[in-house]
């Protein structure tokens, strides 16, 4: 058991022939993910020559889904085409879409999100590392070598900071049920609350680590949700205590706007909800061990 992706995931790769798409498709297959095909407009009928065999390529997600019975897709296309790819995957009725692409304009994402909200599609990302269920499936780019199966669920807005914490867990022999990188963009698909709800309901997840950062108010909302609805222990780290206000720290999401979205405010809200917040991500492991 796990959340969102497992052995039953049948994955399409949108943009499978690009450099990143090719490399990470091979990585995902090597991890054990059931990749059933690729989608590249204009290359339908060709084959993807993977390290472990061929995969069919389709012109559209709809044709690919009909032919393969796919139930998820991952998007490796540039920002200019990524919104189109998300609309297409949702229109084809796929229940899960993971978009890794960064630099999608915010106003574009508002439209994408509004469209997805009318559908049954769950979106992870954009601008995220994807997700991984150790021992079952990886949909994204989280390094395979740093995870190990277990019962700790992890949800994070950051990429490499997630790796840092997951790797520390694995080194201490603490396994993970599923690790979800929801991405750092201001407008995105699933947020902390959506993932926390799934972890709370997942019988194989015993507790949860939540990694946030400055900007927005998703951590504050998550704090309220945790206080009202979570029975499982949640441990957290919030990055950006030293970030100066008004400056964009690399992520579209990581900016302190006025007095809202500060690390202090988020930490206070989480602590008030009974969440233990680490001052140093290296300490999370000791806090839950």
């Amino acid at each position: 058991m796990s959340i969102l992706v497992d052995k039953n995931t049948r994955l399409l790769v949108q943009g499978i022939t690009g450099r990143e798409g090719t490399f990470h498709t091979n990585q995902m297959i090597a991890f054990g993910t059931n990749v059933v095909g690729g989608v590249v407009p204009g290359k339908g009928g060709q084959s993807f020559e993977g390290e472990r065999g061929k995969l069919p390529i389709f012109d559209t997600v709809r044709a690919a889904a009909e032919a393969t019975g796919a139930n998820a897709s991952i998007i490796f296309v540039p920002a200019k085409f990524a919104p189109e790819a998300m609309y297409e995957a949702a229109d084809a009725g796929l229940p899960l879409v993971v978009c890794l692409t960064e630099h999608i304009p915010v106003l574009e994402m508002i439209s994408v999100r509004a469209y997805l909200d009318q559908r049954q599609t769950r979106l992870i990302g954009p601008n995220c590392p994807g997700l991984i269920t150790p021992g079952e499936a990886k949909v994204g780019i989280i390094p395979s070598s740093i995870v190990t199966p277990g019962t700790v669920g992890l949800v994070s807005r950051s990429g490499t900071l997630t790796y840092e914490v997951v790797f520390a867990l694995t080194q201490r022999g603490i396994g993970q049920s599923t690790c979800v990188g929801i991405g750092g963009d201001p407008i995105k698909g699933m947020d902390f609350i959506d993932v926390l709800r799934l972890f709370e309901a997942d019988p194989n997840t015993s507790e949860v680590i939540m990694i946030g950062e400055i900007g927005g108010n998703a951590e504050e909302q998550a704090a309220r949700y945790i206080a009202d609805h979570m029975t499982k222990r949640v441990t957290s780290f919030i990055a950006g205590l030293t970030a100066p206000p008004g400056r964009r720290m690399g992520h579209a999401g990581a900016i302190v706007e006025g007095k809202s979205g500060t690390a202090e405010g988020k930490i206070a809200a989480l602590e008030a909800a009974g969440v233990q917040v680490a001052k140093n991500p290296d300490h999370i492991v000791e806090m839950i061990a």
Partner: protein
Amino acid sequence: MNLHEYQAKRLFAEHGIPIPPGEVASTPEEARQIARDMGGRAVVKAQVLTGGRGKAGGVKVAQTPEEAETYAKAILGMQIKGLTVNKVLVDALAPGIRQELYLAVLIDRGKRLPMVMASAAGGMDIEEVADKTPEKIHTVHIDPTLGVRSYQTIYLAKSMGLPRELWNDFHEIVAGLYACFKSNDASLTEINPLIITVDDHLMALDGKMSIDDNALSRRPRLAEMRDFDEEPEAEAEAREAGITFIQLDGNIGCMVNGAGLAMATMDIIKLYGGEPANFLDIGGGARADQVATALRLILSDPKVEAVLFNIFGGITRGDEVARGILSALEQIDTSVPMVVRLAGTNAQEGLALLAEADMMTAATLSEAAQKAVAAAEASRGVETAS
């Protein structure tokens, strides 16, 4: 990316928003000429990408063209919050002001919609208004498929106590400001103050606009509006190289891959008693030449007493980063101590490459931060002694 007031107001005007007549000057003589063309009386306003221009003496009312020249001479070249004023906007003096209002369009992340924010308490710091008298701020959300509806602007106008005669004009201005926001991929369009003149007209006296950096590739016209003089040189060079670099005031330089990890690294430096000298994210899949540029930028800051590298390889490869560090060190003669922490993809290969260089290594982020802080203290000790 932030626009200057004159750039924002020109874009507002394209969407039918009334602004005072005005022109930009880069010399006092130009300022005098513009003031003369507009009839003599003018406001001379420093064009600089920061707030607090008025308090710094960067906004002056001139009664004659000669006075406009004198003021322009004083303002041009002035430093406001570390930024040099290179241009002034010379605006015709607005007719008498009956009232100052506030109007903005921005994105409400929580509701995932554009939002119009309006207040009758214009002309002052809106964050202060929001803090002290939140009841004076009125908002409506815009559905992108519907645009601004008249019932929404009537609600705002009524809440702000605008006279009935101004409701139609106010609607046009709100609709124009939203159209300007949308068609330019802005993250903020703001008019503060939006004035009611003594002859009962609305006019945008000041303008502020921020553009979504991710949209600049599809808005070439806006990309050309970037004022390179306003950006610190090091940050501009980093942007060219595809690195995100923000200069801070501390003593420990850091180079990290990923924004979240970079912020966490800064936090931990502080936790162990140091101060981060910068935020630097080399991004995913950084190449050796980018790493070399990044290290050069960090070391160009004389305050830096130690450098901490924290690379958790995923897409980024440890050996590639190590090659970048080595090639940078071939070009730069430095005695600044360095601490390297590599993990993830090809970390061992990277550490092997760096074994010949004179660098400290660390297994964890905490250890790396502690070593960097200690090294900075030690290097300060050496300097004091010599």
